[in-house]
């Protein structure tokens, strides 16, 4: 029983990391209908920026803060420079552009920092604390706390602020948003900046666990896709719930199903994606779209 609960808890921690990258994917998708395949690589690149700052002697928290700001600006600039020119083109064109970004950022990170695997500091002490009969790692609790904080802040931004209202309006109907005078293009860029910063959090959280390398986010991105698909791809809350479900089921499958074990865990998100698309394509929190033709 304890093993089950412990596995679920550590599943929640990895699920929270998937959730944060999934939220980044959803932030961009709901406002632009673009699935950003480069989201993971943007997060990886941001994490290298933090690593570089720590290497140069900056304190961990200063490096993290500066990285989040840099990621925000970077996301904003990427949208203006790379995505803007293909706005309104067929989906396939935009998908190819984000895949191109993926390859470009991956190669650039390899060029700048080499493909050598490096350690990355964790802000959470590697100790366990006892909760009754359970022993829970502080990093597990820390990751859950950070992601809760980020998602909570996003919720407040969207639900309680004027900017959040404007972002929701743009996501719902860009044409009507223009008619009330909103500069939609800049709001879309802002969405990319926000998504890049949230993605950077997931990179910084995952790096101490998976170690830092240009390919670090590959599997995380697949788990995040599963989480976002499960959540319906347009609901940030859905992405969080989806992330936690994916994390827990991945961990439980790895522990209890011998045929899967630690090596084949990556099968789990792919099965989830296929199952959701077959049974409920709009996910748990999405709305079925009806299109007249």
């Amino acid at each position, binding site marked *: 029983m304890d093993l089950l609960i412990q596995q679920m808890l550590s599943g929640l921690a990895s699920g929270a990391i998937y959730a944060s990258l999934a939220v980044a994917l959803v932030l961009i998708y709901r406002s632009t209908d673009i699935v950003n395949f480069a989201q993971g690589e943007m997060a990886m690149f941001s994490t290298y920026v933090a690593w570089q700052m720590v290497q140069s002697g900056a304190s961990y928290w200063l490096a993290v803060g500066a990285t989040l700001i840099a990621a925000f600006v970077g996301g904003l600039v990427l949208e203006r420079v790379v995505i803007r020119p293909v706005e309104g083109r067929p989906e396939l064109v935009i998908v190819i552009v984000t895949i191109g970004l993926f390859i470009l950022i991956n190669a650039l990170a390899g060029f700048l920092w080499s493909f050598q695997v490096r350690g990355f500091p964790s802000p959470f002490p590697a100790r366990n604390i006892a909760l009754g009969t359970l022993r829970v790692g502080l990093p597990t609790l820390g990751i859950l706390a950070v992601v809760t904080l980020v998602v909570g802040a996003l919720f407040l931004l969207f639900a309680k602020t*004027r900017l959040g*209202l*404007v972002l*929701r*309006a743009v996501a*719902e*109907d860009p*044409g*009507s*948003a*223009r*008619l*009330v*005078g*909103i*500069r*939609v293009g800049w709001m879309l860029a802002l969405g990319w900046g926000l998504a890049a910063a949230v993605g950077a959090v997931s990179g910084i959280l995952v790096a101490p666990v998976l170690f830092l390398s240009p390919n670090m986010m590959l599997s995380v991105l697949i788990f995040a896709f599963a989480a976002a698909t499960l959540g319906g791809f347009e609901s940030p809350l859905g992405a969080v719930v989806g992330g936690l479900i994916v994390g827990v089921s991945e961990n439980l499958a790895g522990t209890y199903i011998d045929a899967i074990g630690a090596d084949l865990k990556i099968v789990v998100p792919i099965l989830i994606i296929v199952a959701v698309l077959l049974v409920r394509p709009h996910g748990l929190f999405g709305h079925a779209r009806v299109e007249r033709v």
Partner: protein
Amino acid sequence: MTAHAAPVLAVRGLHAGYGPIEVRHGIDVDVAAGQVVAILGANGAGKTTTLRALTGEVSTRGSIRFDGAELAGRSTESIVRRGIAHVPQGRGTFVNLTVAENLRLGAYLRGRGADVGDDLLRMYEYFPVLGERQDQRAGSLSGGEQQMLAIARALMLRPRMLLLDEPSLGLAPLVTRVLFEIIATINRQEEVTIVLVEQNAHLALAIASAAYVLEAGRIAMTGTPDDMRRDEAIASAYLGYGV
């Protein structure tokens, strides 16, 4: 305001279209400040495209001068910033946002001023049903209520000119009559110039001081509502009776 005053909106040789397809063929329109101008015409005559051209939503050639400034070629956002509010056909409300959120977005360009709250209350006076439903999702309103919301949201901009595209579309006759009375009231009380595109020529002429008839993308006739009613061809085609 007389029709001899310099027009607040002067359209010259306007061509508009969607990509390579041109649906408007060089039209001239003058609108004096404070007027209600009706644009009449059959389905597909180019009425909606004309309005969309005014707010930069379709590609255009020709000149659109509003209050002396050239609008042709500007983005929709910057045209709206000059005080032109457009209520599109099909209303264009944000159906997943509440009534109050829709109205606050209407005042987006005015920042956070306290008078935005006063305007909100004034809209609830024009349209009491919106006040009762301020926390409901716009998508849960009836067609007539959504049309009222769309007009109220446009007024929250405190526009100098209001473009209304088929406000009667899909509404019951009784609802439509009430709506047109409110539109006439708004024209007087808010001192806002109104360009009204409408298939229901009777209703439109009742509140307009000038009218244009579009046929196949060209202006077929210009005049006062009385001119329109007296013209046999117009009366039989759009008003349903011959003289």
